[in-house]
Each structure stands twice: as structure tokens, then as C-alpha cells.
């Protein structure tokens, strides 16, 4: 079930029905669509190709449009049709007023109608958090009661009666009388609101693509056009290549920004190599800041299942001299301590994700000429390899 389209079937939309719905909506893994035109009239191309056993497929390119925003270092897609296409075919980008899918408009519309019938993912999240808070209060109260009971029993010298402590799996939210009372005045209010003519709600949200996602779409599929905000003209590939790299160089003081453009350790390049590699293997790659890591890998998408892998991108300099002279501070370039690695591993295993260290080697400027950075051909000199990190428990691995 798409979390923003209303479900008319109510209870039937669970489990299998929701999965089928998701498979239907998010069925295309990439923005390009391959179609076999089922035209009845005679077409010579189809028959000639058919002799070789080759089906006649066409590519449908959605040709989305976005604007580059230098302040946020991202590409904004304001057209809601384009952002829906980019989200539904490959889960690119993030709505800036939403949790992930651009659902702000739908949430505002449902807030105008009777509340409680349709829930977006943000509302589901709030509900879940409130329930969990209530569970924690109940559990703390039960623990306090158990401790008081044990204390009283000890003072009297008898055995304490066991007190049931709620566990997360079996606790059910109880209907609280206070919440129901607060609901009753609202239907009266909403009725009044609906009688007034509503002004059409403008969609104020846009889809935000990171530089790596945008470049991936432009370079490989040519399905995104990026508009320069200063000139309102679409940018060519060469302009996009140099603009995306200069975002990191412009932050440096002027004498350093010019030579920094020719460096191989530009954070855009390093992160792009990792992004492209995992996308080319079919994984949906999203940001991992919530779990102390750089990237999260989903098998088909966030709506299907939780991420299985958490990736830390570790840049490795081929020449240590490059690292010393670097104006950029790349994260994880210096080998960090075991305590930090333990921390990140512990955080991720709490949420059942496996930690992957993706090593991206940065070519040495002594081995590869710096002029290569002028075109995407320099990406051929990087390399990426991954290492899986898990804890080893000797007591469990004995058999």
C-alpha cells in the first residue's frame, strides 16, 4: 500500500494485499521504463527483430527536471509528477518536508478531512512513538511495584509475590478515557470547516536529490536535466561535472580553491564511486546518518524491508603525501580506534544490520595525471572493495 494514497478496502489491505500493491507501484527498479509496444498494425522492425528472437522493446525516458541549489549542495525537483516518478522508480531523493517520500501535500489534505481515516508514514511514526512511550511508563510502574512488593516481603520475612512485568512483544495499548474525551469536540469543528470553501493547497514540498544521486541519473540514464539557478538554462554534462566538484572547493579560502579542483580526493568523487558501485549491483542506496554510517543498502526499497547492510565509506590514499597535502578532510580517512568501530558495530547490530567497510582507493597524483579530473574518465582509476565486519563469539562458534 502506498502510504499516501487512501485505502478504500480498510482491513483487507494488510499483508498480501499490501505487498501486491507495493509491488505494483514500486515495480520499476530504475527510472527508465522498457515497454514492448503491443501495436496490432504491421511494423517491419518488429518482424525483422522477431526473426532473431529479439523482442522489440522501447525505452521510455521520463525526462525529469531539477534545479541545482548551491546552498544545500543538492538538486531540487519541484515538479510533483517528476518527484513521484523519481521516488517510485528507484527511491531516489527525499522530500524535504517529509520523512522520506514526499507526502507533505497528502498529509495536509488528510488533516483537513476527518482525522484518523488515512495515515501517512509520519502519522504512523507519531502514533508508534506515543504507544512506545506509554509502554515504557507502564513497564516502569510495574517494575516499581515489583520492587516495592519485594521490599515489603523481605521486611516481613516472606517470599515476594511475582508481579507481571509487561514485555514489548505482548503489551497492548489500552484505550485511555482522557484521549477519547478530547476527540469528541473535533468532529463538530471539522464539519464547520468543510462548509467553508477551501482554497486550493499548493504543494510547497520538493524532492531533494544528493549530488551523487543526481549525477548517477544524469550520467547513466540521461533522465534528469539540471537547471542552473543563476541563468535558468539547462546545464551540460561538463558544467555539471565541474559544478558538483566545486561545491567542496568553494568553501576553501581563495588561494586553495583553484588547485583543489584538480585533486582526486574531492569528497564528491569518493562518495560517488561508492554510490555507483552499490547501485550498479541492484541495491537501493540511501543515507545512513541515523546509524552512524554513510550508506544504507536496501534490497528492493525502504517500503519492502529494513536495510540489511550499513556501509562505511573508507577512503584510502595510494600516496600518503597526498593525504598530508589535502585541503579536504575526508571522513574515515585516518584509521580510527577500536572503541569507535565497536560503537558503530554495536549500534548497527542492535538494529540487525551488518556493517560493511567499503574501501575506496584514491589514485596518487604521481601515478595519474591531474588533468584526468576534467572528465568522468578519472573514475576509472579509483577502485572499491568491501569487507564485512561481524562480531565473533567463540562460545557460540564452537560447533
Amino acid at each position, binding site marked *: 500500500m502506498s502510504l499516501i494514497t487512501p485505502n478504500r478496502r480498510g482491513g483487507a489491505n494488510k499483508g498480501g494485499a499490501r505487498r501486491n500493491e507495493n509491488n505494483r507501484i514500486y515495480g520499476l527498479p530504475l527510472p527508465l521504463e*522498457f515497454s514492448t509496444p503491443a501495436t496490432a498494425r504491421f511494423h517491419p*522492425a518488429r518482424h525483422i527483430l522477431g526473426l532473431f*528472437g*529479439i*523482442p522489440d*522493446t*522501447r525505452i521510455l525516458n521520463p525526462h525529469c527536471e531539477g534545479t541545482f541549489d548551491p546552498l544545500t549542495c543538492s538538486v531540487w525537483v519541484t515538479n510533483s509528477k517528476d518527484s513521484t516518478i523519481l521516488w517510485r522508480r528507484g527511491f531516489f531523493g527525499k522530500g524535504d518536508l517529509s520523512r522520506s517520500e514526499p507526502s507533505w501535500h497528502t498529509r495536509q489534505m488528510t488533516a483537513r478531512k476527518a482525522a484518523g481515516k488515512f495515515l501517512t508514514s509520519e502519522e504512523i511514526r507519531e502514533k508508534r512513538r506515543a504507544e512506545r512511550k506509554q509502554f515504557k511508563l507502564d513497564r516502569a510502574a510495574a517494575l*516499581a511495584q515489583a520492587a*516495592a512488593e519485594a*521490599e515489603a516481603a523481605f*521486611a516481613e520475612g516472606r517470599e515476594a509475590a511475582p508481579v507481571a*512485568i*509487561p*514485555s*514489548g512483544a505482548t503489551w497492548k495499548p489500552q484505550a485511555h478515557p482522557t484521549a477519547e474525551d478530547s476527540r469528541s469536540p473535533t468532529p463538530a469543528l471539522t464539519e464547520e470547516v468543510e462548509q467553508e470553501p477551501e482554497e486550493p493547497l499548493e504543494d510547497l514540498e520538493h524532492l531533494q536529490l544528493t549530488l551523487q544521486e543526481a549525477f548517477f541519473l544524469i550520467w*547513466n*540514464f540521461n533522465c534528469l536535466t539540471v537547471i542552473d539557478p543563476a541563468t535558468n538554462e539547462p546545464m551540460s*554534462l561538463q558544467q555539471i561535472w565541474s559544478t558538483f566538484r566545486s561545491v567542496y572547493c568553494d568553501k576553501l579560502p581563495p588561494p586553495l580553491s583553484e588547485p583543489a579542483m584538480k585533486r582526486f580526493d574531492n569528497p564528491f568523487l569518493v562518495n560517488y*564511486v561508492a554510490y555507483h*558501485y552499490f547501485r*550498479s*549491483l*541492484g541495491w537501493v542506496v540511501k543515507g545512513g546518518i541515523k546509524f552512524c554510517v554513510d550508506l544504507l543498502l536496501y534490497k528492493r526499497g525502504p517500503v519492502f524491508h529494513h536495510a*540489511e547492510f550499513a556501509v562505511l565509506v573508507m577512503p*584510502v590514499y*595510494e600516496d*600518503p603525501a597526498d593525504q598530508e597535502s589535502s585541503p579536504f578532510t575526508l571522513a574515515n580517512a585516518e*584509521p*580510527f*580506534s*577500536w572503541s569507535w*568501530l565497536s560503537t558503530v*558495530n*554495536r549500534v548497527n*547490530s*542492535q538494529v*540487525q544490520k551488518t556493517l*560493511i567497510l567499503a574501501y575506496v*582507493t584514491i589514485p*596518487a597524483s604521481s*601515478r595519474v595525471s591531474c588533468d584526468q579530473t576534467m572528465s*568522468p*574518465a578519472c*573514475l*576509472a582509476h579509483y577502485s*572499491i*572493495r*568491501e*569487507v*564485512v*565486519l*561481524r*562480531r*565473533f*563469539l*567463540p*562460545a*557460540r562458534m*564452537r*560447533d
Partner: protein
Amino acid sequence: MDDNLERPTSKSQLPPAEHPEDEQSSGDEDQGPDWTKLPSVSGPRPVIPKRGEKDFEPIAAGGSGYQRHVLDRSRSAMFDALRAAPSISSKSASHAVWYPELARAHVTIARGVVVANMGHSVARPSLDPGVSQKVQKRLELLPEEALYLIERGALFCRKAGEPVLAEEERLDEMEGAPMSVQQAFAEMIGKEDLTLEKYQVYAYLKRLGYAVTRAKPPTSEYPVPTPYPSAASPSTTIFARLRNLFRSFVFGLRNLLLGSFDWRRPIKFSRWLHHNMDYTSLSKSLRFLPSGHDVPLHIKTKSGAPPSPYEIFYHLYKPSTPFKKTAPPPPDFSVVVVNARTTPIPSLHELSTLFGVLPELPPPVPRKRQAFTPGGSKTPTAPPPVPTSVAPSSEASSWRKLFQWAPSCMTKQSSPEKAQPQAPRTNPFLALKTGNKIIVIAAVDAGTTTFFRFGQGVFKEWPML
């Protein structure tokens, strides 16, 4: 599997039922031993209270007599257990002599586990006066082995050169005053590359039942495990050669018709040639960046840098593996021991050096769920004998597409592949999480050891699209 230990639960964990005589086993991984379960020599066994949770804040109503009582009970049980003297009879203990200059303990009387899987036999010239010079083989222990046995109380070791008691003064075969545990620690830590961290890892693994040997033989007499079976070289059968030839032909033809790789437009679509016309082949064409562990590394290392501490130190054998002291099999795990405070995590160069010496393991088979039998035998999860990877390959499918008009040709070529027994299907996530080469790194942080498994990633072999 090991994630289960780290998931928080609101229920307090009861210690697993333990064999009462097994005084060396500890309860949970991360908590100390349950002192109330250890047998104590002095007095009757104390009443065993359940190990419960300590409150983290005082009760609002006041009064924590119950809590204090529980804590006192556990503390006194711990002190009682520590006070108990080690209870091993001298009849079952072995005797040895420690030679500091050789850094070895020569076992004079060997009993029990000492002979089974510890120590190695070394030929040394006999030094007794009066006996003619002849080379005798004797059992010698490495410092960590001797120290472990002394700590357990299974070995009485005296230092060579200490005064030897006369025959009449001896009690129970003891030739002289045995070393105390403190003296043993002072003598043996620091000899033969043995640091306190390495000893702690050794003792912990031995206590769990593993057989632990050194990876780098300290002397030539030390038994070396049989080398790993070398990875099968890419087959040079005629079938494989033909396939390579055909692949290069198709590649050249494609380049001719579509133009060579252009970095301005890396993905080319062609309707007539049906190139990149579905998601699988499109995804495959996207993999043009150099990736994987086969790509050569050009990392420059500083010439004056000290040698890296990341070296395989121990070979680990599971308790179920038949371990023969004189001819050890290839190890189950290779362990590196580092001090977590002074050493950062391994760099890529160090990791690839470590992976370079390890064998490639086949993808893991999912555990077969067996119906519970009272006899209790579990089938070991042996990897299937078929070494071929079960990873999907799309090259065969592209072959089939182009040769649809010659079905007979295809069946002949695919039959030798089908003739092999059908290997059980590997779960791709299991293979991805394990990797194909495993190195275990033990990071010791002032007594607390954490073991990490670094596996070489195999994402390229298991694409999702």
C-alpha cells in the same frame, strides 16, 4: 546468529543450566562467572539465590533492605568461591622444568590433557652427566601452554637451575619447589613473543575447548599445519576456452557496432541489437568501475614505518575437529591479537596482506533444521563438496538468447553442468554476510577482549538485479 546476544530484552536473563563439576565454565559472554554456582571446598554449598537485576535507582518509598541483602549474598558467595583452595590431587598433576634461556618447559611427567593436544616434541641432546651424548625426543611446552596449565593447577613446574631436593626429601615425585603462579607469570610473559594480551586470548580460547596453536612456528621443530588446498585454477577445458573465445568475439563485435566505451555516455542503448534493453543487462552494464579484491592495489607504504602488528598469531581448531598434534589439519580460524588501546583498526593494506594468505571458502550452506532426536547428534554444517559457486551468471542466458535457433547446441553444453549433483541453494544474504575469506581479530582492551570477524566481501558475485 550472534546478533541475538546483543538484542535487549526486558526479561532478566537466567544463567543457562551448567554442569556442576565444570568449574571453569563461565555463564554469559559479557558477565562475570556466577560465583554462587561454583563448588566451594569449605563448608556446605551455600543456598543458590537466583541472579537478579540490580535496581538502578532507590525505591521512592524508601528502604532498600532487600536489595542490600541480595547484594551481600552474592558478594559473600564470590568471596567464598575465591577463598577456596584449588582442588586438584597431586596424583593427576604433571611435572615440568622451565628453561628460561630456551623459553620452554620440558615435561618430565606428563598426565592427562597435557599429552593430548598441548606441547610438541623436540629433539634435544641429553645433558645428564654420565649418560652418553645422544639425542632424545622430549615433550616441550610453549610459555603460554605452560602458564595456562600452571594457572589451572594441572602442572607443577620448577625452574631449571633451582636447587633440587634429594631423593629422600621428595614428596610425591616433586623434585623441587614448584613455581607459584605469580612467579610463572613473571617468568613466561615476555618470552617468545608472548604478551599479556596474547596470553589472555589463549587462555580464554583454551578454556572454551578450542585447540590453539601458533601460526608462525617459533622453531623448525614446531609442527606446521598442512597447507590449504590451492584454489583451483581457471579451468582450461576446451569448453571454457571456447567460451572465452566467444565472449571476446561478442565483445569486439559490440564495440564495433556501438562504438567503444565513451566516458561521456557510459550506457548505450540499442534497439536493433537489443543491447541493455532490460533491467538485468542494464544493471550489468553499469558495473564498469574497477571493483573487487582482485584489482591491484598501488598503495605506497612509508619505508621507515615499524612492522605492522597485524599478523596471524594463532590457529584455532574447533573442539569437534579431529586435531592431531603432530600433523595438524588446516585451521578453522586464524586469529590476530592486538592491543586495542595502542593499535588502530587495520588499514586496507594490512587487511589485504592478511587475506592474501587465507584460502577462499565456498559460500555457506544454510543450516538444515533437524527434528530433535534424543541421541542428540547434530549434522555438522559441512560445505558442499561441489566447489562451483551457485551465483547466478547472466552470461549463459545471453548465450541462449542469441542461439535460440540452435537448441541442440545448447543442451549439449549445459548437460555437463547439470550432471553435477544439485548443490543446495545458498541464501545470498548469508553469503554476503560471511564473505569468502575470514580473519578473526581479537582486540584486547586492558583485559576485555572483543573478537571481530573481518570477511572479504563478495557483493560482486551476488547482485540484486
